[in-house]
């Protein structure tokens, strides 16, 4: 049986509403107060970790006493004299070492880094830094994002290069910087020897490669020192193994600008969320252009991202234009976008998002699209769905 309830009087109703209003006001005040950003409180809630922990805690003791793998290769390098203990940093402390540049590494799945100063045989001072990213492509992303134009390629590793006073390379998921305080031939010779020792001391990533999906056979760009070794054609995966494509190997070689191959780990072309996009710059007979490739986990994802990027370009002043009938035989869905003197073509082929970015002429855009897609069609013919 439902028990009948009394109807409150107007006075009671007013009093109840007043109390509720007071409670609501208190709740609002609490919410407002809590929402105010007080960095001091945030810091107090997560006390600073000891940064740059020194070797005093042990030869490979790093952040908070953990042994960091990147410290070990810096412990016993031949022909150089350590000038400082090994210091190690993790994602929470990286900016204590490299300040605002930390964001670049963090966006590319940074894991840890260790560094140490050395004195070369000729007396030059060298800072050696070993960064561990999550995967080889992440290491390539940080290297390529900082690649100095006009630098000298080195035979040490596929991506290795030297400037007047510094040397950079990757090995597996490691990115290494060796920066000297001098720029002379003797210093650079010593630096190359140090680099070779350090390269040998780093793990080659064979275990990780063995455990990772097999790569498709693909042609190597002949031009450009940045080109990595091509995987052999026998590296085709068993049909049941999902295929991963190495985008770096799929760019056409004609007109490719040396050292221009890059991997944008995040926010490629200025579009938030557009990640892991390879780009390469070209100088062609009809103008310059940038080719882009991004391998996605499913064709639908590639299509959606191509559409999102086209929308982004449209919001930034580009307008769709028809592809000429005598243009390259691109897959259905390919779009041409045009803005003042700038041409973009986007399409997908299976899980690959491909495009030509910021071409200076329609002819250059179409020419590069033709070359890029022809290579893709050939290389991806063996793709396992």
């Amino acid at each position: 049986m439902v028990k009948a309830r009394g109807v409150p009087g107007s006075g009671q109703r007013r009093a109840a509403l007043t109390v509720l209003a007071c409670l609501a006001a208190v709740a609002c005040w609490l919410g407002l107060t809590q929402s105010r950003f007080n960095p001091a409180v945030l810091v107090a809630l997560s006390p600073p970790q000891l940064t740059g922990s020194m070797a005093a805690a042990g030869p490979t003791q790093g952040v908070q006493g953990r042994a960091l793998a990147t410290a070990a290769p810096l412990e016993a390098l031949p022909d150089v004299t350590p000038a400082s203990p090994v210091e190690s940093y993790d994602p929470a402390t990286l900016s204590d070492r490299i300040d605002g540049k930390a964001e670049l590494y963090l966006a590319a799945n940074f894991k840890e880094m260790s560094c140490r100063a050395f004195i070369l045989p000729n007396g030059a001072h060298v800072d050696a830094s070993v960064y561990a990213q999550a995967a080889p492509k992440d290491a390539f992303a940080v290297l390529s994002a900082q690649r100095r134009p006009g630098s000298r390629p080195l035979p040490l590793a596929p991506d290795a290069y030297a400037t007047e006073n510094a040397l950079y390379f990757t090995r597996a998921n490691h990115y290494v910087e060796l920066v000297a305080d001098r720029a002379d031939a003797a210093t650079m010779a010593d630096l190359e020897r140090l680099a070779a020792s350090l390269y040998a001391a780093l793990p080659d990533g064979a275990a990780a490669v063995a455990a990772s999906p097999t790569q498709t056979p693909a042609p190597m760009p002949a031009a450009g020192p940045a080109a990595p070794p091509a995987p052999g054609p026998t590296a085709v995966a068993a049909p049941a193994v999902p295929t991963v494509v190495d985008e770096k190997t799929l760019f056409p070689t004609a007109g490719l600008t040396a050292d221009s191959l890059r991997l944008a780990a995040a926010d490629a072309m200025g579009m938030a969320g557009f990640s892991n996009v390879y780009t390469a710059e070209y100088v062609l007979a009809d103008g310059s252009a940038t080719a882009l490739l991004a391998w996605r986990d499913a064709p639908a994802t590639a299509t959606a991202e191509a559409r999102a990027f086209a929308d982004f370009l449209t919001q930034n002043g580009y307008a769709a234009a028809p592809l000429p009938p005598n243009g390259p035989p691109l897959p259905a869905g390919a779009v041409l976008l045009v803005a003042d003197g700038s041409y973009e073509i986007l399409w997908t082929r299976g899980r690959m998002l491909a495009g030509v970015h910021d071409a200076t002429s329609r002819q250059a855009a179409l020419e590069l699209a033709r070359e890029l897609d022809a290579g893709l069609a050939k290389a991806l013919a063996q793709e396992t769905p």
Partner: protein
Amino acid sequence: MTPVPPRIPPGAPAPRDIGAPDSPSRRQFLRRLAVASALAATAGGLGLALRDPHGPQAVPGGRVLTGLGDFSVAPKTPTTPRLATVHGTDRRAMFNQGINALGGMEAFIRRGDVVLIKVNAVIAAPPLLAATTNPELLAAVAEACKLAGAAKVLVTDNPIHNPDSCFAVSGLAGAARQSGAAILMPRQALFSPVSLPKAALLTDWPVLAGAFAGVTKCIILSQVKNHQRAVASLTLKNLYGLLGGRRNIFHQDINGIIAELGRLVRPSLCVLDGVVSMMTNGPTGGSLSDLKATGTMILSTDPVAADAQGIGLLNLTPADLPYLALAQAAGVGSIDATSLNPVTLNVEPAAG
């Protein structure tokens, strides 16, 4: 038939209205309301009495500062230039010419002044890499302060690397020593909490305030650098080095914090060194190929104007630095240098 009222035993409560068997009487309601109100008022009053609006002091017995001081100097005359752009390669000569155009060092430094020079010693990198304030510039400025009658010249920064290494490797320690200035290392005792009025970020934050004790003039010496997060590191970004604690938390709102830093201290003079600029891979750089000879030094009393001029050395415009507009809106300075009577000088005669 007349209804018969129910029989009520003596002392029993009066029957309630039909349909509201549990409703209290008016008297009961008022009594309950009074009790509830009294309890609420007591709880609220107790909370108010126990509330500490200032929170715990970061330093026992210390006090929260609202800034580091206003060290600005009024120009000699309304027409005296307050911004000089000097082209050349010799930093000492460029500084001397620039400061003369602003009325001479005596216009900024009086006899007996205690001068604090804030340099950029962010990392332990040699001067060759142009990641830190150039030691030649520091020496020229410190010596000019001494010549103008400064009683003491102090040099400080709170680098991200070991401070001893940073000042030594950058050559700043040697330059200070040679010019009679003293390096003030950022030891813990020099940090005090600062809460800028109406600040969104700089509240209760440890700042290198102890370095300003007894200081009467403040000069900022900055290096022109590309900056991965802030686009450019110039004068205002250099003030980041006054922050203590886990300051990288501010990278989430880099423009907001740089604009607030402009309110933290009003310098007497800003010198922006773009003789060699770090064009890429900043703020740490590392390779000589990151650098470009841009042959320019900017001196100004206005940090916003100095940065607005200096950003051009990186082939960018003031619009590329959102913090400049924020700082201008906060009254730190002016992007448009017209009102500063700017002058442009050439130290070395043009070739040919």
